[in-house]
């Protein structure tokens, strides 16, 4: 009898504890309306130079533009996550982010390969994501209602590069390399397709994970002596390649996508970097008329001029903040749900940002984006922001282009009538 009671008591207690769990929260959460905005970018590892710039841009935007929301009685907190440029870490972070009900939006990522799986998690939880840097077409082409970006696309960036390459008088043959990541391989493919369409001869198309010794890769390139090497990759790899290829006696041009847009490219490639062409969807902050103040503030706060994509990160955060204000107003001063906010952000129209005027199309692409071709002028990393802009092209997003084409047809049909 006694034994039996001893055995049963703990079970009763245990059930009681579980019951406590089931009961509503007994610790009264402190009142106070908190909004959290998260970001994900590589803060460690070889790509942290740009990743940290993205974080700084978001932080600056929240400090400078959060005033209205604070006046409305909300406290804004910023939670930067480090995705380490790895899809696994990105997804694990995303799971943490969506579990926090106060996080209403994410700014990120830097790598397309990380953005795609992470955004699946956001989408399941209707959490808004605005990307300052992802150019892979699949980021928006999946049609997720929560994914937006403020920059252009690789299926337009790659071809822009190829068209420019074809326009160079002494370029007839090209060699295309990529870093075997979702981003690098993607943009390199688009470059190759357009290059072939433009009549350039693509002598080789190779992916490599090598990061230190490119000798074996350079030998066949030297044998075929292409006029231009296009490397779809990120600066921490491309920089080393450029330096070694030049040292090995390669004499043609180098070209790359926005992944190589970083002062660290000059740091790593040394003198060989001068003359390198790159396309980008994010012009240097200095070319934007509205960005002068931003450059000043950023430099003061972080002790260095803004890195590429910092201004885009600032704009992304600004779009989120503006959408928040609208959503709160529409909600009668109360916090909107994530879904409401995502819808409000998608409805962004003619937002005057640092980097241009942004209107999202139905996929979350900006209706028009600028594609720039730049040339590196100096091996001094500090001079990176003074790289020459060779050309700027504004191209509509694919959805917008369809729309325009349809309108064009409509006008074309309409014209004879009138």
């Amino acid at each position, binding site marked *: 009898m006694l034994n039996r009671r001893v055995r049963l008591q703990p079970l009763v207690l245990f059930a009681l504890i579980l019951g406590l769990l089931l009961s509503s929260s007994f610790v009264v959460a402190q009142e106070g309306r908190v909004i959290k905005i998260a970001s994900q970018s590589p803060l460690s590892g070889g790509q942290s130079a740009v990743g940290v710039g993205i974080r700084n841009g978001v932080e600056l935007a929240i400090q400078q533009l959060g005033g209205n929301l604070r006046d409305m009685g909300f406290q804004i907190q910023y939670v930067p996550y480090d995705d380490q440029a790895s899809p696994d870490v990105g997804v694990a972070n995303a799971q943490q982010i969506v579990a926090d009900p106060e996080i209403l939006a994410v700014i990120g990522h830097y790598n397309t390969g990380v953005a795609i799986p992470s955004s699946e998690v956001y989408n399941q939880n209707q959490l808004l994501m605005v990307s300052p840097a992802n150019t892979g077409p699949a980021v928006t082409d999946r049609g997720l209602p929560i994914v937006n970006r403020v920059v252009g696309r690789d299926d337009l960036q790659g071809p822009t590069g190829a068209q420019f390459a074809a326009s160079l008088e002494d370029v007839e043959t090209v060699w295309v390399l990529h870093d075997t990541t979702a981003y690098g391989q993607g943009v390199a493919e688009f470059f190759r397709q357009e290059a072939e369409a433009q009549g350039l001869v693509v002598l080789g198309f*190779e*992916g*490599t994970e*090598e990061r230190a010794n490119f000798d074996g890769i350079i030998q066949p390139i030297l044998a075929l002596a292409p006029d231009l090497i296009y490397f779809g990759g990120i600066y921490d790899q491309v*920089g*080393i390649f450029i*330096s070694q290829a030049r*040292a090995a006696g390669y004499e043609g041009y180098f070209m790359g996508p926005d992944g190589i847009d970083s002062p660290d490219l000059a740091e*790593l490639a040394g003198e060989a970097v001068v003359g390198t062409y790159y396309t980008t969807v994010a012009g240097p902050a200095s070319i934007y008329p509205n960005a002068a103040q931003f450059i000043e503030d950023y430099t003061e706060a972080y002790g260095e001029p803004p890195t590429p994509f910092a201004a885009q990160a600032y704009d992304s955060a600004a779009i989120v903040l503006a959408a928040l204000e609208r959503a709160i107003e529409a909600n009668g001063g109360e916090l909107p749900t994530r879904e409401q906010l995502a819808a409000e952000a998608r409805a962004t129209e003619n937002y005057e940002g640092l980097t241009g005027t942004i209107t999202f199309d139905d996929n979350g692409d900006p209706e028009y984006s600028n594609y720039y071709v730049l040339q590196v002028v100096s091996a001094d990393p500090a001079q990176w922001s003074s790289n020459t802009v060779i050309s700027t092209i504004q191209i509509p997003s694919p959805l917008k282009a369809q729309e325009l084409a349809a309108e064009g047809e409509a006008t074309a049909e309409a014209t004879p009538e009138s």
Partner: protein
Amino acid sequence: MASVSRGLAAPSWSLRLPPAVRWVYDYLLYPIGQMLVFIIGAAVVLTLLAYLLAALVPEPRPNIILADQISRQLPGMIISGISIGFVYAMIALGYTLVYGVLKFINFAHSEIFMVGSVVGFEIMRRIADSGTLQQWNPVVLIVTVVLVSMLVSGLLAVLIERIAYRPLRGAPRLVPLISAIGISFFLIDFVRATEAITRNDFNLRYPTDQLPWLTQSVALQFGTTTVNVKPTSFIVVGGAVLTLLALNYFVNGTKLGRGIRAVAQDQTTAALMGINVNFMISLTFFVGGAFGGAAGSLFGMNVGTVTPYVGFIPGIKAFTAAVLGGIGNITGALLGGLTLGLVEAFLNGVLVYFPALGQRYTDIFAFSVLILILIFRPSGLLGERVDEKV
């Protein structure tokens, strides 16, 4: 296992010659000859295989005649294969020496190599920061950089052995192996943290830009083709050959070397003969580590930029080379390293013309070669033929 004793030196049956001549033969002519035989042998075999492939698949891609491309690339491929092959060989020596003495795979060796490359960077960078880099005599500069990184890496290896391996001697093999993996992880992050804090970056670029004699490639004429060779390739090969000769002399011609060989053969007996086994083991780690360090700084000068992560791939490749040649065997490490370097260079040079494959399959093919060799020669190319007990 008596393998460590089989260094590069001439076998004992060589001709009866005056001591000085004998010395020159044993420690210069014979080992250099052996290196030449390995290089020429591997290069000839691979060239023949490449042309055989060209005969089978004359035009893998429109407008590309494989045989022509091979002829054009041949000197370049061989030079690049040799220079990376020597780096592999030098790292492989570290694995092989330690294995020969302790029968244990020093997984942290790739990070000792990495530390060597970072130390090389630090010295050159510091000299450059003081503004005197151009005034240095090239030979003195290179010798200084290589020697200091050898010293640091060697001492690091000794320290690692003291801390992480010596307390585990006698434990099952798995135990020191795992602490070696631990050391390797620790060193990567430790170096990264140090560099990130002191330099705010861990992509470490050798200041070779300031040294024209180091960056301006030399044009060599091979028949109709001109090959641009980086001076650093010569430095790597030259440095490697010199250090290998020194190792050969050390192992076969000195008392300490004899001590190491004795410990490798039988620790107990060596101890009974009055050899300080612990000292000899430390010495082995020092020598192996120094080689890793030399390889690291030479590699760093050659590629220009190093990171804390730079050790992994060469480390794995060098280990593969050591196994390929027969782990525990010094000559085997040299043969394995050169063979692997050349195989890679040829694969890179040829696979590029096969659109369906490409250079990204180089590692897979290189590794398949290793597995094939191991299946047919389970102890590697030069490993003792072990009568299979199963």
